[in-house]
């Protein structure tokens, strides 16, 4: 295109835009639904990205407002901690603050630090890409992964769209992991953990985060996911013992009504309390 054409096109474009504003909303202005604040999804999506069936209240209630206030205070503290991570990373204060809930805006950073992702990733540069490629060609778990990606956190705005960006990322992370750790392959339950990581981390970081959770001495979720679930059974036995010892009445009551430990502790141990504590606390 020569200069004259370019100029003409720019002029046309400008006139077009100017005239749209001059006409205003009336006379059938072409507007996509999402361009207006009336777009329903804006009103039903909470601050974490979960889409609800009904419109959320316009004004946050006093309780909610107070929580946000508290979170803003925590943000300041966390920013300080993240700057001085070297000295902070093992303190009791950090531990306490994690249990109170990492502020939403800093979760990605905090998780990266806690799981030491940068170092782990650098030590195995190129590995993720290699695994991803390998998975596309060879992973025997692709079928189950596909089934589960299609129904993992579909009520979250990032995973809402079939084959959307984060669904692609989730598929890749789980596929790559299934060939990276052949003892585990893919186990149902991992898709939600990986998806939660992906809400705050990019694809490759989420992969390494999952890897650290499974293999690192501090977390060793390996025993949860390998066939037979040895670690899960051990945790549940232990939980029973604690209940019998410290809450015998409650334990008896639960037993009497057939509420066995396996039912209600599975998501606690197996999936890091996901879906069982408020998203606020993750």
């Amino acid at each position, binding site marked *: 295109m020569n200069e004259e054409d370019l100029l003409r096109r720019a002029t046309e474009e400008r006139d077009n835009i100017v005239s749209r504003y001059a006409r205003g909303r009336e006379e059938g202005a072409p507007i996509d639904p999402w361009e207006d604040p009336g777009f329903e999804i804006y009103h039903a999506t909470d601050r974490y990205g979960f889409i609800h069936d009904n419109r959320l209240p316009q004004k946050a209630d006093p309780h909610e407002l107070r929580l946000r206030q508290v979170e803003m205070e925590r943000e300041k503290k966390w920013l300080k901690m993240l700057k001085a991570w070297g000295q902070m990373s093992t303190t009791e204060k950090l531990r306490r603050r994690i249990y109170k809930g990492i502020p939403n805006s800093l979760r990605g950073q905090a998780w990266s630090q806690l799981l030491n992702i940068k170092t782990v990733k650098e030590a195995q540069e190129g590995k993720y890409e290699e695994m991803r490629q390998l998975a596309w060609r060879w992973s025997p778990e692709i079928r*189950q992964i596909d*089934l*589960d990606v*299609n*129904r*993992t*956190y*579909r*009520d979250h705005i990032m995973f809402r769209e079939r084959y959307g960006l984060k669904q692609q990322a989730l598929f890749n992370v789980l596929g790559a992991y299934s060939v990276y750790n052949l003892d585990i392959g893919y*186990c*149902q*339950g991992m*898709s*939600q953990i990986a998806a939660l990581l992906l809400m705050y981390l990019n694809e490759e970081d989420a992969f390494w985060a999952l890897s650290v959770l499974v293999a690192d001495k501090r977390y060793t979720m390996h025993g949860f996911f390998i*066939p*037979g*679930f040895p670690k*899960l059974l051990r945790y549940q036995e232990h939980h029973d013992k604690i209940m019998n010892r410290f809450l015998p009445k409650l334990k008896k009551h639960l037993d009497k009504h*057939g509420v066995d430990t*396996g*039912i209600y502790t*599975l*998501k606690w141990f*197996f*999936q890091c309390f996901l*879906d069982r504590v408020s998203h606020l606390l993750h």
Partner: protein
Amino acid sequence: MVEPIFDYQFRLILIGDSTVGKSSLLKYFTDGKFAELSDPTVGVDFFARLIEVKDGCRIKLQLWDTAGQERFRSITKSYYRNSVGALLVYDICNRASFEHIPLWMMEAKRHIEPHRPVFALVGCKLDLANSSNRREVSLEEARAFAEQNGLHHVETSAKSGVNVEDAFRLVTQEVYGRIQTGEYKVEDGWDGIKTGFQRPGGLDFNLIEAEPAKSTCC
């Protein structure tokens, strides 16, 4: 006690391949709603509902939902033992899920032994099969298999709700029938069938061994 009044409690288990629609079936049956989005079931999940059988007897159903992925069988198998009925669930639009039904049935029989459970073969996603012509398992074929193996059969849709109620009702009615003929008994240490808490009148008649109960309990 604040528990709802019921005469018996039956435990049923739902088994079948991954994503055939076990959880959606249960969701509709207990909640009356179709879940457009539902997370994969990890391990086992639990539902309950009260229904009435033909003579007005009230039955509380405890329903165990299970993960379809093969490796979870080591967990789910401990839930078979205390079940009196099993719904063998397949997806009408997924041939393989139907072909695996005999395996699921064997698995259930093996773990429920020495008890003899009531089985129902339940096809899911009838709406999908009808609307977009994606049926991969014909009604005749499924029915033939069910007859051969002495199972109830029903095709359901958890979207429209068609036959969902029937699937559970068939099994419940049969279990109840078998109690009345004396084939099933309430046993200590087995939770497949339990008596309710609030009607002492109905409590003990089936504890008497092998004596068929002719009275109704209500």
